[in-house]
């Protein structure tokens, strides 16, 4: 469905109930890319390793085909089922976000623990903001469905930012598949947040840009997934420190003390 926001545009009453040849060819290309990735995943057995991601992709694939039929033959049913499907995709997307975390940090329980803590703080802040909004009599989440989807996508985006920061800080190695899934989904979520924000803020004036930009962004994500998942991934490099056993407390304390002393001495150099 994300590949085909022309449907959404029709709901918002801008475009007539017909489709340009460009839109149709773009839709067909999207379905073909999704089908290619799914077929490749079946061949190499990646459904078992990333059930949420490929489940998400399969659901989008089915929706694309199904919604084209509804759009073409039973258009009056299109709007009611559109939002159900959209939020089903959104829930599946939350599963994909969780799966990206598991895929990347699964072998690093320490970094995973940091991720859980930071995410808990972020979600607590968002929840607190919402509760304060309710207390003040505001509508905390959204007035329209577009805003609701935008806000939920923004939470996913924040989670992925946290993940990116932790990967950078802890030098977590990324495999080709994990990198591809993360990059593709991250770009998709980021562009969704930005386009939905502009659509909700600017309104109808942004409609034409929105229906043009969004499918192209999704196509870019599909392209990244297709490229990164196509070739075989070499076996992950085992870390040389895999047999090292050590006490975290001692290591952290020692590094911390060393840095503190170093900083103090450095401070003294400018206070002779």
């Amino acid at each position, binding site marked *: 469905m994300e590949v085909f926001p022309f449907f959404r545009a029709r709901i918002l009453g801008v475009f007539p109930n017909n489709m340009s040849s460009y839109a149709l060819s773009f839709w067909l290309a999207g379905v073909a890319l999704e089908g290619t990735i799914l077929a490749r995943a079946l061949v190499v057995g990646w459904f078992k390793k990333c059930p949420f991601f490929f489940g998400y992709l399969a659901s989008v694939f089915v929706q694309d085909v199904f919604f084209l039929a509804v759009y073409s033959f039973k258009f009056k049913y299109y709007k009611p089922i559109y939002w159900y499907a959209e939020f089903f995709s959104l829930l599946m997307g939350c599963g994909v976000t969780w799966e990206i975390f598991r895929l990347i940090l699964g072998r690093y329980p320490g970094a995973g623990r940091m991720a859980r803590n930071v995410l808990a703080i972020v979600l607590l802040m968002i929840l607190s903001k919402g509760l304060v909004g309710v207390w003040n009599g505001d509508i905390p989440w959204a007035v329209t469905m577009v805003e609701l989807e935008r*806000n939920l996508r923004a939470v996913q985006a924040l989670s992925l930012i946290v993940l990116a920061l932790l990967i*950078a800080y802890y030098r977590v190695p990324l495999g080709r598949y994990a990198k591809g899934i993360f990059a593709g989904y*991250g770009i998709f979520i980021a562009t969704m947040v930005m386009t939905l924000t502009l659509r*909700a803020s600017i309104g109808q004036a942004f409609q034409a840009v929105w229906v043009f930009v969004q499918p192209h962004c999704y196509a870019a994500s599909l392209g990244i997934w297709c490229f990164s998942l196509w070739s075989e991934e070499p076996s992950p490099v085992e870390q040389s420190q895999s047999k090292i056993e050590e006490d975290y407390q001692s290591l952290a304390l*020692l590094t911390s003390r060393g840095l503190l002393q*170093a900083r103090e001495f450095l401070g*003294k150099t400018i206070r002779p």
Partner: protein
Amino acid sequence: MSEALILLAIGFLLVASLVYLLRRREAEADDRSWLQEGNSARPSVEFEDRQKEQLDRIFGREDWDFIRNGTTRPVQRLFLKERKGIALSWLSQLRSQARAGMDFHVTRVRASEELEPLAELRLAIDYYAFLAKCGLIAALVLLGGPMALRGMAGQAESLSNNLRGMLRASLKPQAFPQKTRIP
């Protein structure tokens, strides 16, 4: 409107962090190859011995006093320029060694189930504060030259020794009690 700006910033931040991450990984794979070699010597992070005389020479006033009294202005300018370069190079080396030590720490603790988020946060703050101070001193050296930091020689030696001790200790896994198995 401010909410829209925040949401747009989140979107941009995600794109930027993805780009940074994808670009950064390529470069770092080579930089950190020593971590995967099981080489206990790890010369790239070992502190080289810094003799007290060397630091006295870099940051002390003796050479400057001699140059100032016995040479012309162009020679003095050249001397100051070279000393500034040496001091900045020393600071840069110090920074990179601290960075290597911190990198080694995070690559080892990331798989530890006993990792404590608060301790890690404090450590990160200390590390970035250290880098900030290095940056501050570098700025002072750039503005005033190494002779502006008169007390540096003695303190610099202490700083070097401390950082050297920290790095040496963190590079010896057998020095720690065996509690956590890293898979």
